[in-house]
């Protein structure tokens, strides 16, 4: 059936746990398999019961496609494949494949080790899940969580005018008008600078991927321009691994960055050095990037504990912190923290939250829709009441239908697929030689044989098809006898038939052959004398199987008789 059916299983009308089921061209595809960061129970996973009702997932689903490595798009993958049960292929790009397991493991550690969750996927499950992954190139998938303004190192999201039947886009931030990147950067630099100027230390806990590199580049530029001397450190470990991956995937980055790679590798900094834990006790100002990002363990937490008591210092949290982590607590304003061994840590250092979120805003979403030129648009990730205006905006500006289904609700889109068919030149020439060319108002019936080889379609003449199949052709010919009252000679009868048909059948090719017979296209009419009755002539009308329609028409026409000949 030429329909596309879309059912969000998560992220229908709420944020998080992105998971969309699409039935297209007879295949069932799951787009993303995310985790909802706000819940601790089953609500954090998409509702798979919608599909498990139909039987085994592996039988029902043809594949899973993961757009990118953010946890709200891939966080539920190991649960889905290993605990619910799916053995089919999982497609994602190479960088996503490399980075996904790192983030999944990181998250698993917090959930299980820090928060003591029981029913969570294991490290082994993550590994087993990743074994099912097939990495693909960018032209085969589109990046999720796009942003239309270029990140310093990643390229801006740009899409070809692919004119899809359906564009599915998030609308979470469609109601947002983001402030300029420069302002946010300025704010960040201002804070770092002020702290360093007064002799304080700045701790920036990072997730090790994405933002860390961008902030490094920003600080490096700033330090260079302003000739600052305070040291900047970048902790080793997970971050090194991430840098390693970034170097591998340099081809995925911004054009400008790529150009400079030869002269100077952007990820080897002049002012930024590797951190040694002993440096944390050094006097004087410094900036340290340390993992992990939510201050929940490891080096960043260690450094935090050392520096928290001094109000000259500052910690800048660059992203979302999960409940239960130290990061989350201090961002909620908590100033006294209970650490292990019932020790209380008093937080006097300044706490700042810098959001460099990667989502597109209203303008960006409209730009993307304008570039892709879809037939219809479907919104996910937003609340219905808050998407009404965007829906109207899209419908008006692009004159397309805009849908916003809730979780579990199916949207059906009729499509008119076009299948290109090649026609053999010989067949085409033969049909054209038959006579008058077909026009839009007078279509002609074309006989041929459709050959489907691999994924191409060819229309060839029946003879050619038979030849290819090695079969002999059999001709079917029908002959009909029409009796006419006419005492004249056969030749005259034939002539009368000819002039009659010529005047009536203006659209057809009517010919009078030298041997007296009349042809209408490929139909042959011969006049013969009746064996017994000289006053009756017999018209033999003969046609091939292909001309059945015309043949029957002629027969009934002739049966009506010929007009009186003028004497």
């Amino acid at each position, binding site marked *: 059936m030429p329909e596309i059916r879309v059912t969000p299983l998560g992220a229908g009308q709420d944020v998080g746990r992105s998971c969309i089921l699409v039935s297209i061209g007879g295949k069932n595809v799951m787009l993303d398999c995310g985790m909802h960061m706000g819940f601790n129970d089953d609500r954090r996973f998409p509702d798979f019961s919608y599909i498990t009702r139909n039987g085994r997932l592996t039988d029902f689903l043809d594949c899973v496609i993961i757009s990118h490595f953010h946890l709200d798009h891939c966080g539920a993958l190991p649960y889905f494949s290993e605990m619910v049960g799916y053995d089919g292929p999982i497609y994602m790009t190479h960088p996503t494949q490399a980075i996904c397991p790192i983030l999944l493991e990181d998250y698993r550690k917090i959930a299980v080790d820090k928060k003591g969750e029981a029913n969570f996927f294991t490290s082994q499950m993550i590994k087993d899940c990743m074994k099912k992954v097939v990495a693909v190139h960018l032209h085969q998938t589109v990046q999720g969580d796009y942003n239309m303004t270029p990140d310093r190192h990643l390229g801006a999201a740009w899409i070809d005018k692919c004119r899809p039947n359906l564009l599915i886009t998030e609308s979470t931030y469609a109601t947002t008008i983001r402030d*300029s990147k420069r302002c946010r950067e300025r704010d960040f630099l201002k804070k770092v600078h002020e702290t360093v100027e007064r002799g304080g230390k700045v701790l920036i806990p990072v997730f090790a991927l994405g933002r860390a590199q961008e902030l490094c580049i920003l600080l490096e530029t700033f330090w260079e321009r302003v*000739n600052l001397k305070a040291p900047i450190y970048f902790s080793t470990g997970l971050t090194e691994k991430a840098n390693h991956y970034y170097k591998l995937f340099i081809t995925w980055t911004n054009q*400008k960055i790529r150009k400079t790679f030869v002269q100077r590798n952007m990820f080897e900094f002049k002012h930024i050095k590797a951190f040694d834990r002993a440096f944390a006790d050094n006097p004087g100002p410094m900036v340290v990037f340390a993992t992990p990002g939510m201050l929940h363990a490891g080096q960043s937490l260690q450094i935090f504990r050392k520096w928290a008591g001094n109000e000259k210092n500052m910690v800048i949290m660059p992203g979302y912190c999960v409940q239960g982590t130290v990061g989350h607590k201090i961002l909620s304003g908590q100033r006294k923290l209970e650490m292990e061994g019932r020790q209380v840590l008093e937080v006097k250092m300044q706490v700042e939250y810098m959001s460099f979120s990667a989502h597109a805003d209203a303008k960006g979403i409209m730009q993307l829709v304008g570039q892709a030129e879809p037939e219809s648009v479907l919104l996910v990730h937003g609340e219905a*009441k808050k998407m009404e*205006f965007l829906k*109207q905006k899209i419908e008006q500006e692009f004159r397309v239908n805009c849908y916003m289904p809730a979780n579990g609700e199916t949207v059906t889109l009729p499509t008119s697929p076009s299948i290109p068919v090649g026609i053999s030149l010989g067949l085409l020439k033969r049909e054209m030689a038959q006579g008058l060319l077909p026009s839009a108002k007078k279509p002609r019936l074309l006989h041929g044989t459709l050959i489907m080889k691999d994924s191409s379609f060819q229309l060839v003449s029946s003879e050619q098809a038979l030849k290819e199949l090695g079969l002999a052709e059999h001709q079917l010919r029908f002959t009909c006898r029409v009796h006419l009252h006419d005492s004249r000679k056969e030749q005259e009868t034939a002539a009368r038939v000819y002039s009659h048909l010529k005047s009536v059948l203006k659209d057809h090719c009517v010919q009078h052959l030298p041997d007296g017979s009349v042809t209408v296209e490929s139909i042959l009419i011969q006049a013969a004398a009746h064996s017994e009755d000289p006053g009756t002539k017999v018209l033999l009308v003969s046609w091939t199987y292909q001309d059945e329609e015309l043949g029957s028409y002629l027969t009934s026409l002739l049966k009506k008789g010929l007009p009186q000949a003028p004497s």
Partner: protein
Amino acid sequence: GTGSDSCHGARGGLAGGVVALVNSVGLGPGLRAWAGAGGARGESWRAWGGAGRGAGPRLPGLGHGAFLWAQVGYQDFHAFDLSEATRVLEWIGDKGVFVAGYESRKKNEILHLTLPFRLSVKENQGLFPERDFKVRHGGFSDRPVFDLKHVPDTRLLVTSGLPGCYLQVWQVAEDSDVIQAVSTIAVHEKEGHLWPRVAIFSSVAPGILHGVRLSSLKVVDLESQKTMYTSGVSDSDELSSLQVLDAHTFAFCCTSGRLGLVDTRQKWAPSENLSPCPGSGGGRWCAEVGGRGRGPGPHIASLGSDGHLCLLDCRDLSHPESSVQCAVSTPSPAPELLRVTWAPGLDNCLAISGFDGTVQVYDVMSWDGMGGQAEPLFTHRGHVFLDGNGIDTAPLVTTHTWHPQKPRTLLSAASDASLHVWDWVDLRASC
């Protein structure tokens, strides 16, 4: 000094977190880029040089795109890009503003935006990552919107534009995010290119004050559309601004500079000025009532398209108190966009815009006499510096407004669809 000087040797802190960074490439002649930040730490100023220093290699690949711009005296600065430029900035409470497009060839959007949350927070600002405007409601207008007023204590808006001489009334939905057109108010004067000015008499039964010329000035009851008051005169002076002062009084300003205060309890008998500001040669005028100036009562500030700014005491409009020539280089290229506003939270401060891509803040107490040059307390140049186009026509500030609560916070919008929220530091307030 010029942009290429470098004084990075100077140590010292910055009052109120002022940062001054320079793009030596982008500065035009005569633009001063140094911060004069006095402050608790006692240092006079701090500045850094740009690429002209020559120390160290320029970072390849980042080039001009990575410049840091001059921002003098800002406490806070947020820059946004709307999808279309706006000429209106109308507050709803102190957390939301309305903006609206003014393009003539397409549907325009009317948006209700809520301010970034962190701007409403007094303490612990650093903990709030929300720096973005949120579109809370949106609607579509077939015509460009030149003026928009919110009817206080209701969910209604009144807009004015062209073509067609009528006012459109809108309803901001409660249960969804849509702004819907609900009714129109006819304005019987058929004027091709003139659009009616609007002001709202806020009460249980709101009245809409509107008019194109003095002759067509009237107050209409919003619900019944009955006329409650008319000027009843035949003067054809074109109106440039209307302002409701209290339940019975309003002020008008004509493009000619004629000003008046009207009490609607009486038949038309406004107290008026005799003539436009002395020393000015005509041009187009707008005005706003507010502030306190020298005397205890309210004052009118009147701004002309040639840069003249005039101060009048409401009790005696016939004798202007003072006048100055503002620090603007050319007469306004778009006099209809001229705007002068009094700061609701500061004594004696006003802001002007409509001459170029800047907004200037003046202290009227520092003026003296008539006709002298005035220097602004502060000039917001963000729309010029952050202009992505560079060489093309510089953007023009279309409107600005003061934050109702935060004394030194302003919003400004420009013709390139930029929208800024900025909080300037009063550099004289050093200890």
